[in-house]
């Protein structure tokens, strides 16, 4: 599961651009991940310039 760590997100939408199922929604000042569609590929975690997103599944 991807967790949005704190309120640092800048709503730049870089994470959407790499998300294969397009399950991230970014608006002017909100970000939401549609969990049911997420495939836990972690690409959004890798691309975020300021490390806002975190994979919180136990591996």
């Amino acid at each position, binding site marked *: 599961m991807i967790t949005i760590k704190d309120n640092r997100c*800048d709503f*730049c*939408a*870089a*994470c*959407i*651009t*790499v*998300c*294969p199922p*397009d399950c991230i929604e*970014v*608006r*002017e000042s909100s970000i939401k991940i549609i969990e049911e569609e997420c495939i836990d590929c972690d*690409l959004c975690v*890798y*691309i*975020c*310039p*300021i*490390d806002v997103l975190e994979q919180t599944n136990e591996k």
Partner: protein
Amino acid sequence: MKNNYDVIVVGGGPGGSMAAWEVAKAGYSVCLLEKDRDIGYPVRCGEAIGEAALRQFVDPKDSWIASEITGTTLVAPDNTSVDIDFAKETGYILNRRIFDYDLSRYAANAGAEVYTKSYVKGLIIEDDFIKGVKLDYLGEPKEIRANIVIGADGLASRIGRAAGIRTQVRMKDMESGLQYSASNVDVPINKMIMYVGSNHAPGGYLWIFPKGNKFANIGIGIDGKASQHKSAKAYLDEFMDANFPNAAILTTMCGGVPCPTPMKSPIKNGLMLVGDAAHLINPVTGGGIAPAMKSGMISGQIASEAIKNNDYSEQFLSKYVKRVFKEFGNNHERLYRIKEVIHKLTDDELNGIAIKVKKIDPLKRSLGSVFKTAVYKKPSLILDVVRIFAGF
């Protein structure tokens, strides 16, 4: 806001404003929908543009220009630096907050309706034709219709995805970017400084774009493969600590820069994508303002032609794609090939290139000569370099 327009433009960046302006000039009804409360803000950009690139659309206003750029300094991994004066061209660092705002005002003054706080969340699709958009306007759901929708909604293009166009970008072609607008930094006023190499910015570069008065955009883009191991922020903070420990960071901005080849088919029945939404960024520099403006302008012209002919089919709109490729898309494909070679160079090779270019007489040095030296491993690309930099 009406329920019907000839054309709907989604996104109020330079691509969207140019598209709306062009349609309005032709006398058709058009609305421009921007999700944020402001046009032109936040500024997710280093704000650099070539003077000639800008002048093909508009005469620059003084208030748009923070500084005039007459050359660049390239810094290799071992900090060898090479100065290159621009022979013919000069560049600008813009104030995009003012610039983007003015472009939307040009569109509005020509008759376009501009709405902020308008988040487009989906498309109306009938018989395989896009017929309008679904949006939240000031928080209220609404539907508006048009025979043509222009998606100028930036890198993540919701519009493209809703239409079934593949907009996802591979990690190696995606730049993870961060920029500080910083004060109390003593940098030359008319030079862009760019740092390359795995220590500075793997798979991208780090830039200092001066805005005058000890103020500058200092930013970084690293590719998605590198950002898997260390974030753009970590690289930029190290650089700031080492070089500008006393800087005051007045703005922090994140952003992604998609740098793949241009989309082959950024169109559907009743839809054209422009600018970042269609991956129309110079893949070597990450410069996307001028390509967004150009594609926006062309899309507006083709939209007007489509209305005149009452033909909104993908086949008709393929005229848009042909013109984009002819005017700069083919060059972007060449630049992509060059980027692929440059990104494979090791730090030692980059240092070696810097030393070689330094030996060229400063008056004869040009960006073309740098790229020619950089593609020595793939001589077949020399022709691409010559084609692109013929004018430099």
